[in-house]
């Protein structure tokens, strides 16, 4: 399922993000999944999700232009299904 732009997300508390030259590695200590975050902008969005009201305001704050939002929604949806990010209560 695709995440909505107005949904509130956060990095899963069992996930560690390690910066790498290509972006970052994310590792989920619970399900043992290792995920490649292949762009620095995806890394900053993921790291800043919890600091903003919703996905859209995070994208704005990270300087991601609106024409790139659909690809970020796809990336975040995939990360949500891997439990790297999750919904949070507002």
């Amino acid at each position, binding site marked *: 399922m695709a995440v909505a732009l107005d949904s509130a997300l956060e990095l899963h508390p069992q996930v560690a993000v390690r910066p790498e*030259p*290509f972006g970052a590695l994310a590792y989920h*200590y619970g399900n*043992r999944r290792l995920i490649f975050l292949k762009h620095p902008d995806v890394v900053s969005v993921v790291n800043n999700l919890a600091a903003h009201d919703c996905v859209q305001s995070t994208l704005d704050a990270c300087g991601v232009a609106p024409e790139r939002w659909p690809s970020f929604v796809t990336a975040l949806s995939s990360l949500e299904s891997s439990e790297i990010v999750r919904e949070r209560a507002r």
Partner: protein
Amino acid sequence: MSALVEQLKGGLDAPICLTWELTYACNLQCVHCLSSSGQRDPRELSTAEAKRVLDELRELQVFYINIGGGEPMVRRDFFELVEYSVNSGIGVKFSTNGAFIDTDKARRLASMDYLDIQISLDGVDEATNDAVRGAGSYRLARTAMDNLAAAGFGPFKISVVVTRHNVPQLDQFKALADSYGAQLRITRLRPAGRGADTWHELHPTLGQQREIYDWLLKHGDNVLTGDSFFHLNALGDPLPGLNMCGAGRVVCLIDPIGDVYACPFVIHDEFRAGNVRDEGGFARVWKQSDLFRSLREPQSAGACASCGAYDACQGGCMAAKFFTGLPLDGPDPECVGGEGEHALADVTLGSAPKPSQDHSQPVRLSRKPIAVP
């Protein structure tokens, strides 16, 4: 080739997959042991030294380590080190023959978070397994699995080295794993350690390589392989995984005395990058050693350059070539195009590099001969 794989070939800031052989001591004498284990090395890292290495790995944000040996549970500080690691935020996956997992230890292991266990088993029956792993080893492994299941450990892993004798048993291995609610892991036989002496009679035949490939295409999503079969990708659609040699780029090995090698299959002076006891510790070896820096440079396809399958198989495994006496920029000895067999035929008998060290027990009792069908 994906941009990501190109990036990974240039190396990471810290390894993804770090194997740490805690000891060369082992109660078994498997004929294909990658580290020629048996006797403890007196220079083994102390508990305090091992903890210092773990502190470094935490600083580097290494997510988890693969602990092996030898038999890691032989170390008296085994649980102390595992707990120290997990409490430092470094998950532990450890490989064991199961001999020391009695009911009490199984309960203790089951109570720990971020811990995965791989029990080695190389045959679904006693005869096939014990021919490789030694008399009584099948029973030890199955008892350990029973104990883990009874303790509610959850999905442990059954780890199989694929040989020409157990290729026909792949379905049965899967069924055995399913019966325990366990996960099956199959990996490639490497001619390293004592395996250098037994590889020629144990490695899967050319026809069996195709069988393994077909089997993995069918079951690959539910079976772990440590990405070890990428040389088979020359047969068609790629198998799941990164499809690259990670040695010194995303993978490395720390041995029991702190020596750092490019991967678990090349314990040889030529692939030794440094020691964790050296100034600058592990981080300096990983980031700055000449060996690892050279492995992160673009590699030549050499004799394989004109082969249409090179992009798929990447020339196979460096360690398999090295210990069979083949040039590193040529075909893998198990090249599915048959080039490896041709190349092996040209290797002068006895000219292949010998493993640099041997911790085997001086006397091997009751080692059964390997039946060659």
